[in-house]
């Protein structure tokens, strides 16, 4: 069926249609939504019709496209908002300075730090290089528009397996191609704009074959007096559009992101992927920060999802005003764009400034020095309406309240009972522990990510104190968290760490959500930081399926309750739904980026073992919990109990460990996560290029559990042997002395029996090489 007869061309010298939704049948409304790429449901189309009936005219294509942007899942969180309100929005914290496009937290008396992570999943699945690059571009703008200088990028990535053949459904790209494209995209964009890529990770699972996840995070630093509102100040302000030109790239990005990927998505939606230009972004960052710190602007906001259509409305509404825009003033990449295309295009590298008229000239001069476009395109007016003109013709006139107040759903959610020990199917394991450890170390989920890390400039800006890898040069092991020193004249630092365990979350959503927080906190504490705030990206499948929404709800609850118990702020976050291809949904992926305050960066701790003879302790209680563990995944176990999070134990452990670190008792520290104690210990040996002798008999558990359980809230600690007694007294939580640093081997005994014995050089070989070999 065609809906052409419902599109009425207006008699103007450009392309503009009015959409006759008054006379459309239900079937025609559905077709309109589909043909115009609106991705609105029938109910939503009817709601639009209702509104325009009250207004007394049919909408223009510009208006209906604008509504589709504002009401997309991506923009208005219509499926998740009710859950977020119940669990996350009510997290109280005195140190939140802003919950704008990025969250902003207190850093010190004069400064705040900005943080946010979001997804760029769908674009990256279609066009990995451009999708990832523009993901970085977008998140940087979110931080920039708070007035903050971006100081670090964080990239947690999730792909299908690269170490085995996979069946690819039609239209999908191989995991290797996607990894390579995404990492190149991050490298070429991040390195060019000169913001260090400091943290992240790469995870592999079959469920990501059709739904790769590209999460992109950014942190920034801002003088508290320079903190900007993402709003206009009042009537008389001018809207100045700065940065890149507007083109046909990135049209319908948000509506595309709010639907499942299909076989023909590439063909249909290639144009939804924007094109990045880091060499427009780099000077744009300078110019925006310069006009802001000079006090020239009233408000700033980035153009992301929905483009101009979202930014103008949201800035005006937040300032309690209306807006009038001359859409034909927008600088274009090519002639001939229809007004609706200009209005919703998500072309990159653009920001909107609001500034008083008399200052506009100076702002334009500053942008001109950097050869960055800056164009006045509209004015702020009293009222609550946005009005667009194009070559004199009024083409859009909408009430802001209606435009921006999208629908909200309380969809049915079905709780899934968590997996327990009862349903556990223990895998058949190789006869000796050496083989198990070596196999785990070379599993792509655990193996060194040096292949990617070396391609990212993680030191530009010269403030990266603890790098993503640590230890002897060219023999480095992994760091738990990265630490940056944002200010030249202060030793205060920020620790950045990722916490995520999709396998846990798949088996037990609540514990999985809580584990993300536990892991992020463990990592921050391991380098000497105090967990302070988190931001998160929740990647789930289709929320219209009750079991998916059930997973989302329980995972959010687990994450949020942990934040509340630990007094962690959550001033920003992002929900990405519909990560569900024909092959099924992605694992429920709760990506948490944790931020910690480091009082003095000179006291930071790293994971690499330091001194022969130092005693080694395990902090925390090991339990026989294998659900979702690397051991089960690698050797084919199923089900099982997922590690729980004892929030009180976590709080106390962190406090004690931080105390011991302040007292200079700790020489190295590593959190225990994927692959359990055995892998953590191997990694510490690899970075320190020194062995360790352990005796598991102090742990009242079978060797298999001691070595490979992934119970939460645990660390391995190398204690300064001169301060061992002090350490034992300081640790008012369960600790176990399992051995000492020394030799060239990792040698594990249980009383007189040898459990495992491997040369450190062999461990390094097995851990270091896989990604280089698989990805070349």
């Amino acid at each position, binding site marked *: 069926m065609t809906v052409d007869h419902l599109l009425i061309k207006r008699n103007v010298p450009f392309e503009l249609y009015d959409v006759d939704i008054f006379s459309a049948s239900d079937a025609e409304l559905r077709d309109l939504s589909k043909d115009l790429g609106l991705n609105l449901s029938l109910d939503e189309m009817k709601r639009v019709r209702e509104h325009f009936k009250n207004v007394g005219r049919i909408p223009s294509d510009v208006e209906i496209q604008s509504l589709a942007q504002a009401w997309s899942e991506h923009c208005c969180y219509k499926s998740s908002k009710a859950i977020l309100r119940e669990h996350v929005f009510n997290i109280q914290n005195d140190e939140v300075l802003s919950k704008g496009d990025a969250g902003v937290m207190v850093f010190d008396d004069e400064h705040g730090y900005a943080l946010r992570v979001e997804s760029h999943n769908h674009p990256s699945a279609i066009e990995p290089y451009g999708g990832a690059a523009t993901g970085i571009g977008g998140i940087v703008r979110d931080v920039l528009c708070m007035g903050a200088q971006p100081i670090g990028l964080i990239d947690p990535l999730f792909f299908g397996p690269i170490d085995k053949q996979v069946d690819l459904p039609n239209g999908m790209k191989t995991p290797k191609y996607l990894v390579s494209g995404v990492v190149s995209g991050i490298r070429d964009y991040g*390195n060019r704009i000169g913001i260090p890529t400091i943290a992240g990770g790469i995870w592999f699972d079959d469920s990501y074959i059709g739904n790769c996840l590209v999460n992109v995070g950014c942190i920034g630093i801002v003088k508290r007096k320079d903190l900007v509102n993402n709003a206009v100040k009042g009537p008389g302000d001018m809207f100045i559009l700065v940065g890149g030109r507007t083109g046909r790239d990135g049209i319908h990005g948000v509506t595309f992101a709010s639907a499942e990927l299909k076989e023909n998505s590439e063909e249909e939606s290639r144009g939804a992927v924007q094109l990045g230009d880091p060499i427009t972004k780099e000077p744009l960052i300078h110019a925006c920060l310069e006009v802001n710190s000079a006090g020239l602007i009233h408000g700033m906001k980035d153009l992301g999802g929905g483009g101009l259509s979202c930014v103008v409305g949201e800035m005006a509404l937040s300032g309690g005003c209306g807006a009038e825009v001359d859409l034909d003033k927008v600088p274009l990449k090519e002639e001939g764009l229809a007004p609706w295309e200009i209005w919703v295009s998500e072309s990159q590298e653009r920001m909107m400034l609001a500034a008083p008229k008399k200052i506009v000239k100076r702002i334009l001069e500053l942008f001109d*020095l950097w050869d960055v476009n800056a164009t006045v395109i509209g004015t702020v007016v009293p009222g609550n309406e946005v009005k667009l003109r194009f070559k004199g013709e009024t083409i859009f006139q909408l009430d802001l309240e209606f435009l921006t107040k999208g629908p909200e759903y309380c969809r049915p959610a079905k709780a899934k009972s968590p997996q327990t020990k009862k349903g556990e199917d223990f895998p058949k394991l190789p006869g000796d522990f050496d083989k198990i450890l070596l196999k785990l170390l070379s599993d792509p989920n655990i193996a060194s990510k040096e292949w990617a890390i070396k391609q990212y400039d993680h030191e530009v800006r*010269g403030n990266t104190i603890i790098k993503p890898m640590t230890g002897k*040069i060219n023999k480095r092991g992994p760091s738990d968290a990265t630490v940056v020193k944002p200010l030249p004249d202060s030793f205060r630092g920020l620790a950045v760490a990722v916490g995520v365990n999709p396998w846990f979350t798949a088996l037990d959503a609540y514990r999985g959500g809580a584990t993300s927080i536990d892991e992020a906190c463990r990592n921050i504490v391991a380098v000497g930081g105090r967990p302070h705030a988190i931001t998160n990206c929740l990647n789930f499948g289709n929320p219209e399926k009750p079991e998916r929404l059930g997973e989302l709800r329980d995972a959010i609850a687990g994450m949020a309750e942990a934040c509340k118990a630990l007094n962690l702020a959550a001033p920003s976050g992002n929900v990405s739904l519909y990560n569900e291809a024909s092959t099924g949904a992605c694992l429920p992926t709760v990506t948490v980026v944790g931020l910690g305050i480091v009082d003095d960066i000179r006291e930071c701790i790293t994971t690499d073992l330091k001194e022969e003879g130092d005693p080694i302790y395990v902090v925390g209680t090991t339990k026989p919990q294998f659900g979702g563990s690397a051991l089960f995944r690698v050797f084919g176990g199923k089900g099982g109990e997922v590690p729980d999070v004892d929030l009180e134990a976590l709080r106390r452990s962190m406090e004690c460990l931080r105390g011991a670190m302040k007292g200079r008792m700790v020489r190295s520290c590593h959190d225990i996560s994927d692959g359990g104690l055995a892998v953590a210990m191997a990694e510490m040996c690899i970075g320190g290029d020194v062995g360790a002798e352990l005796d598991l008999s102090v742990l009242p558990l079978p060797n298999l559990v001691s070595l490979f359980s992934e119970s939460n809230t645990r660390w391995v600690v190398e204690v300064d042997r001169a301060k061992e007694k002090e350490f034992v007294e300081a640790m008012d939580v369960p600790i176990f002395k399992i051995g000492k640093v020394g030799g060239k081997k990792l040698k594990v005994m249980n009383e007189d029996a040898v459990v495992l014995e491997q040369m450190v050089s062999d461990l390094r070989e097995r851990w270091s090489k896989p990604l280089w070999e698989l990805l070349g």
Partner: protein
Amino acid sequence: MRSEEIKVCVLRIEGTNCEDEMYQAFRELGASPEKVHLKQLLGKCPADMKRELDDYNILALPGGFSAGDYVRAGAIFAARIKSELSKDIRSFVESERPVLGVCNGFQILVELGLLPAFEGTMSEHPEAALYTNISGRFECTPTILKHESRGKCIFTKRIEKGRMMLVPCAHAEGKLMFAKEKEEKLLAKLEENDQIVFRYVDEDGEYAGYPWCPNGSLSNIAGICNPAGNVMGMMPHPERVVHRYTHPDFTRTAADVNGAGDGKAIFESVIESVKRKA
């Protein structure tokens, strides 16, 4: 001349992205650095922003991806300087004032003909190239440098010959090359003129190739100066290691965490040489 009277022009265009840390390195040593856009030297800006190169004592070209490096690293920035600022920059160098290029800055100096500058101040065409790393990849990694200058280079006067320094690299195009047929002769010339300032070595101080030399550079060369010793370019980033606590191994060595980083001596040397000359 007091340190604060030493004016440093930290020159940038779009895509230059290591100017903040370069600025900071000079600032911490008491000099007076200023971040200056090339258009400010060319007069293409509001009157209050105009600057003259001749007013500065030191010129520093920081790292980054100037103009995106889409043609060849440093080529576009160099072409813009050459077309409109050639005379000023030539007289700056001929007045024996120091010019430092780091990473992309080194690439620009080679493209400009200010390095290696075997004949005269500034060769008409580039005499060398900084080519794609042998790994074919961007390499962000700590590297160990050995100081090789016999005393010509004014940026390393305070560093004894043979000293090993930890200075990190981050680049995709850092492999120093000459035209194949001239390679041997020009390498000998660099040696003879005392133009080789730094070479990459392994932890024992040996010339060891990749990964210790992250780009496969000719003769493991990391940095060179002009025959006069007042223009130096290097691929590694000394401005990233002005303090010990930005060294990648500071948590595991006995060195005082409050002490100097290995890159600091370069900035100290050049400031001292400007002071002495004044």
